[in-house]
């Protein structure tokens, strides 16, 4: 008795009551009735995928299929050694670099990073040297959590940047809902460097008067 790797097709999804997937091991279970197909959990504790019908997953199971686990979605493979379809496309990386305004350079350093997920419009990765966690979308949405800063950006014009000295909000419009207090007392200066006051505007000296 030993464990082997199998490719299987997802036949039933996880539910709120049961995180396991029902799978059809291929080609071994090709013609079997669905009611006899195994229902296997994810291999690693505290991780799971809820599944998508028909998608292929890697499974590890004993040779009698009486015990098995889902390892994760199956990458595509090629007998000719062409792995282009299973690699992150250059076009995606170019797009991400283009929208990556704040980082001003290549998004992926290719130095000790772990890509946890990518698809045609996004990439999620961790930089092991710094622990930075980065999610970037081709739409321009970027989330970066680094030891020295947090950057959240949507498109090219809206961004929140937090570091030890300041929080910068950049957008065409900034709306602050509810009561706004500035400083601890609350007292302090409000600096308006641009813009013209509308009919409802107040001069800075009048904010906490």
């Amino acid at each position, binding site marked *: *008795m*030993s*464990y082997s790797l199998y490719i299987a097709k997802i036949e039933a999804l996880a539910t709120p009551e049961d995180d396991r997937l029902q799978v059809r091991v291929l080609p*071994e*279970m*090709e*013609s*079997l*009735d669905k009611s*006899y197909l*195994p229902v296997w959990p994810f291999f690693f504790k505290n991780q799971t995928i809820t599944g998508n019908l028909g998608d292929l997953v890697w499974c590890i199971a*004993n040779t*009698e*299929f*009486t*015990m098995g686990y889902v390892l994760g979605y199956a990458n595509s493979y090629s007998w000719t050694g062409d792995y282009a379809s299973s690699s992150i496309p250059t076009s995606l990386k170019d797009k991400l670099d283009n929208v990556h305004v704040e980082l001003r350079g290549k998004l992926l350093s290719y130095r000790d990073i772990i890509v946890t997920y990518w698809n045609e419009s996004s990439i999620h990765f961790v930089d092991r040297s710094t622990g930075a966690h980065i999610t970037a979308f081709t739409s321009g949405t970027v989330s970066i959590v680094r030891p020295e800063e947090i950057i959240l950006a949507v498109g090219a014009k809206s961004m929140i940047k937090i570091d030890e000295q300041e929080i910068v909000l950049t957008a065409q419009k900034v709306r602050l809902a509810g009561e706004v207090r500035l400083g601890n007392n609350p007292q302090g200066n409000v600096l308006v460097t641009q813009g013209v006051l509308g009919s409802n505007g107040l001069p800075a000296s009048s904010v906490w008067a």
Partner: protein
Amino acid sequence: MDTSITLTVYIENQEFDINQIPELHLMYSLDSLLYSCVMKVRDNTNFIEASVKYGTSVTLIYKEASSGKTIVNCPLQVLSYSKITTTGSFPLNEFQISLTSPYYFSQKPIQKAYYGSVSSILEELSSREFFFKKKDIESSTDTPSVRYQIRESNYEFMKKIAKYAIRDATAMFLYSTIKQDLILKSIKTIMDTPALITLIPLMDSRVEASNSKPNTIGMFATAIYGDGLDISASQNVLFTTAHTVPEQVSAIKASIAIKTIIAQETVLARSNPNPEFGTIITGWEVPYYDAISQSINNLERQNQKVFSVVAIVPCLIHTNVTVGSTVKLYLNDDKSPENGTYYVKHIDHQLNDSMLYTKLHLIRIPQ
């Protein structure tokens, strides 16, 4: 009990002269779904070479000599044969032919899934099996589970799931007989079965009275094997152990038939349990209930090594003694530690120099 039996051998429906078969063994055992046969054949007519091939049909028919009534009609098919040519003034062509149950040849791989206990799956599966004339499948109490027959023959699949069959936490045996019966039986049921015969040494004075005790059989020879004990051969017994009181040794006479199979007997008595059941389980490779079932089955087969007896007796093919039967054994001394009840693990109905014998491999039932 002393009934004369005749054996007729047909090769492709053509009767073969039994005098040209110096030795024949028709064997079956608890743990095997296939009975088998090995025979030595002398032939200078080129008949064997011309007609015996892989898959050739051979039929053994055992009849009662007096009535001509057929006792066993045992179909076989040739697995292999080898030619041994003796040289000298009278060169002789001798062949050793290995045969097995036609069930082996009827197998086709199947893709199917079943749910239930091992016995319920065997019931379902055997309902489509036409080879077996009778089915005696005892209910197993193992945990119902999905079992996959993935491109396996029924034979392979049955063997595979048999190791998970247990009944009330005791081991079960799946086997077939030379009468083409399919049987699943727990060791408890086997042990609880009343003994059919009593075996005693052939030269024992009690044999004289055996005519009035039809269920008492004199043994031509006995081999006793206890695991871990020194074995010493003697001229009169195949082998014995420290269990046997020296005085008893001389009372057990060896048959000429035995001398040809000493090596086989030793291997048989010392053989490891069925490898199917000897798989090492680490506990996480199979569901826990399968691991427990397999351990129970494995342990029972390990126990078979502890104390074994190989007995050569007159042909028993006409009796109800079969694998899974129980027999009693009594040596000359009533206090002999080997005396007791045994179950039959393996049977070899053999023809040797025109005489029919039966060899029983017995496993001691704890008293």
